[in-house]
């Protein structure tokens, strides 16, 4: 029943790694066996977001090149015993791994884990091709900005061409105060444009920076982003969590602002 998800966005800096770390931790808290693979060779970051940067010995490139066994490269999380991270090489480039090798590695990991999360690099080149090769589902992360939505649309087009089982959207850094003023696209607006089912909306929350500083994902904590990531993790695991928290509030305000901004 193991599921392989790729977390991607096209544009850099929208929160792929943060989203990956939080969904992974969220699923592990529910008791699932989870493996997160950082595929951003040369610019790895998932290890620092998870606070595991001091434990790296072997990495993804060592595994595909046969320098170590798969299990030697898997780092067990500090807090959750069912959560593992496979870091990637920092001193190599994206061409060190090819899609066939990724497919082979993931096939091996499917026997061990319930969920495999692939943290995709920005861009649509080799690194993206590697990350999407072995995945069944995709989570596209975007922010309510023109540039990020444009890149998300491009990525969705590429994923659709590869016939993914599921493509879902996470909208990150939403600011409800700006949406109320009519100065930021709401979740509904972004969904209208991209026409992909919504997995969740993460509010712009300074606690995300604090949690990254500490190397501890904030999923499940009593913070706006922590609650949003908890909902997202629940939905990924298959629980039916209604989108009322994400959309109910926003659509009310878009209605109000719509009265003032009628063309």
């Amino acid at each position, binding site marked *: 029943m193991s599921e392989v998800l790729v977390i991607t966005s096209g544009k850099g800096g929208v929160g792929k790694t943060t989203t990956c770390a939080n969904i992974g931790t969220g699923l592990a808290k529910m008791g699932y066996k989870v493996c997160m693979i950082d595929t951003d060779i040369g610019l790895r970051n998932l290890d620092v977001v998870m606070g595991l940067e001091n434990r790296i010995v072997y990495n993804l490139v060592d595994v595909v090149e046969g320098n170590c066994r798969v299990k030697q490269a898997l780092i067990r999380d500090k807090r959750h015993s069912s959560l593992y991270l496979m870091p990637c090489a920092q001193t190599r480039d994206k061409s060190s791994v090819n899609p066939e090798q990724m497919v082979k590695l993931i096939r091996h990991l499917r026997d061990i884990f319930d969920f495999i999360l692939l943290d995709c690099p920005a861009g649509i080149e080799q690194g993206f091709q590697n990350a999407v090769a072995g995945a069944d589902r995709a989570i596209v992360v975007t922010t309510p900005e*023109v540039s990020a939505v*444009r890149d998300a649309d491009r990525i969705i087009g590429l994923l659709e061409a590869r016939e993914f089982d599921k493509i879902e959207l996470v909208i990150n850094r939403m600011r409800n105060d700006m949406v109320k*003023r009519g*100065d930021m*696209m709401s979740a509904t*607006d972004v969904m*209208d444009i991209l026409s992909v089912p919504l997995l969740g909306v993460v509010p712009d929350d300074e606690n995300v920076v604090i949690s990254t500083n500490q190397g501890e994902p904030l999923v499940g904590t009593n913070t706006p982003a922590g609650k949003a990531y908890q909902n997202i993790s629940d939905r990924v695991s298959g629980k039916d969590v209604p989108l009322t928290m994400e959309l109910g509030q926003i659509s009310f305000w878009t209605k109000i602002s719509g009265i003032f901004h009628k063309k």
Partner: protein
Amino acid sequence: MWRNIKVKNIFKRKSSKEIAKDRLKILLISDRVNCSAETLEMIKHDIAKVISKYMKIDANSMEIQISKTGSREKGNLNPVLNANIPILDMNK
């Protein structure tokens, strides 16, 4: 100077969110039309060949491009192939 500012315009001003949405809708259509320059050149060549059977045209100054029509409000903008073919003589 003050006469030019109408009260109506203050209320008609678009929010930046609306501007972002409108820009994205246009932008994504051209992004989604995945048509390479070579393909367009081949289409252009073939169109010129067909039309030349019936009338004399200026194939060198002929232009083709993909644009979008439809109503932006309803969100059904469709890509359209436009060909601009100067006719030199209606009767060949």
